[in-house]
């Protein structure tokens, strides 16, 4: 079963207080668009680690890997977890 909806739901609940995620595209740059800030990135890391039961290496916690739903999916899949 796809776990990707979890991620989208988490981002909406945590960072978009009015819950309106109509324009939350999978490739939207969450950092450049101001949706999440640096502390938000750390919260996102904690969510990813708990949800997918992985520990990210310090080098992996790079905004490039966490800046969009697509990027996070790629990161999680690189750990051998299938999201499809």
């Amino acid at each position, binding site marked *: 079963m796809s776990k990707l909806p979890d991620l989208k739901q988490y981002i909406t609940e945590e960072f978009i207080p009015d819950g309106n995620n109509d324009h939350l595209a999978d490739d939207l740059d969450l950092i*450049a668009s101001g949706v999440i800030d640096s502390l938000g990135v750390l919260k996102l890391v904690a969510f990813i680690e708990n949800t997918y039961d992985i520990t990210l290496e310090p080098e992996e916690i790079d905004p490039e890997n966490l800046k969009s739903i697509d990027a996070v999916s790629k990161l999680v899949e690189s750990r051998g977890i299938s999201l499809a």
Partner: protein
Amino acid sequence: MKIDLAHSFIEPMAANQPNVIAVKMKDNQLSYQGLNQRSAEIATQVAQFVKTSETCVGMFIEKSIDAVVAIYGILRSGSVYVPMDIKNPVERLRHIIKQCEIDTLVTTPNNVSKLDEALGERASQTNLIVINDDASLTLIPASSPIPLEKKGFRVENQNLATVLYTSGSTGVPKGVMLTHNCLTRFCDWSVDYFKLTAEDKCISHAPLHFDLSIFDIFAAHRAGATTVLVPDGMSGNPRYLTKLIATESITVWQSVPSVLVLLLKYGAIENYQYPNLRQVLFAGEKLSTENAKKLATHFSNATLHNIYGSTETNNSFVFSFPASLGDDIPDPLPIGKAYSYVDYMIVTLEGEPAGIGEEGELYVKTPTLMRGYRNNKAYLYESDARYGYFKTNDIVKQLPDGNVQFCARADDVLKSNGYRINVTEIDTVLQSHDVIREVGTFAVPDDEIGNRLIAYICADEDTLSMLELKTYCAKHLPHYAVPHEFEITSEPLPKTSSGKVNKQQLKKMRQEKHVEIT
């Protein structure tokens, strides 16, 4: 006599210790010899376009070894380095380029297109010196250059070395002009006080357009030490940072306090030992005593330094204590005593000198004081009697033990995540949005980031989504000034008797709402 400039030591240092590493980032490093050679190459290119002893040359580069090379190259060409945050909104970049009359920039290939956008019409008049991946340089000269009238000049230490942009009280960023003398006095004192040597490995956490970087680059290099750069993308990654301190055997750390709090909270700080870390400097905002005590348990061989200053004055007070002080670390942490070359006075609201324990505004007189703000003469000297003293807008008090204690800010400027923010600037940006009728931005204290920014907005709720609002802010404000919370209401906001948005009332409204939730 040889004039002492911010970069004068480069050549002798390269001769004395050619193979010592001057700057390192990830797996790349550059020796003092390499820094000397590469910065000389840039200087040769830049020098073609330098008109006077204070020509400003822009830097549009992410934090990197190349950026450090560019700083020295620009200074060695006899010009002034103006570092820009490549993540800044285009309007802000344009403001800097225009105000500093920049027609020469140092950049890297991946930044050229964004730079072109920021330059707009000026692109055809601008010379670009591009540092390629293989360290070679490509010159892209202006297609229609502004005629260059070159005069002979010699850079003195009263000439400008850099212009650093910081949040202004009117909401428009202000360019703080610092001379070579500002930098060398501060660096000499720092090398002496923190006993920096060629054995040291100093972290460079702050961005290069931030005043903390003066210590990380110039003070460290003046001592012949190695500067270890934290790449832009990793500065908010506490696990990376704790690992870096441990694996690189960092000896000197400097950052804003909120980063240290991140290390404690999210950095898995207990995973490593830090026996080599001997100096921990934090500046820019308050660190709680509770967090200072926690840091002291991990950084047990270090001396900790609570530093007070501003971009305008550079640092002027420090409170230093060994980690071994443990439970005896004072609460709250004072800002300590003035640097040896700093004079100060504390003035009450009535304009009288404040007594011991009495609150008043801090005025600072220091040789490291800026020359002024770019294109703005009226920057200091509230009255003749205080001539030469900088009005800090900080309320402090003198303690009986000789230390000074910070109490509060006297204006709308505040710190969040260590960044100086003016809420007026946020109000102005939000007010410019088509459907927003009224706005009131304020801050509430936050344990992790110092201050949390909250914007109350009056607009028709269904016309404005939160996502759109955040995106709008991110486009027009620096990333650190994007409010953390928005409250949208269709009701008019409360007003003061003078008709302004009543922010005190808004604070109260938010407090009540939070009580309801919890």
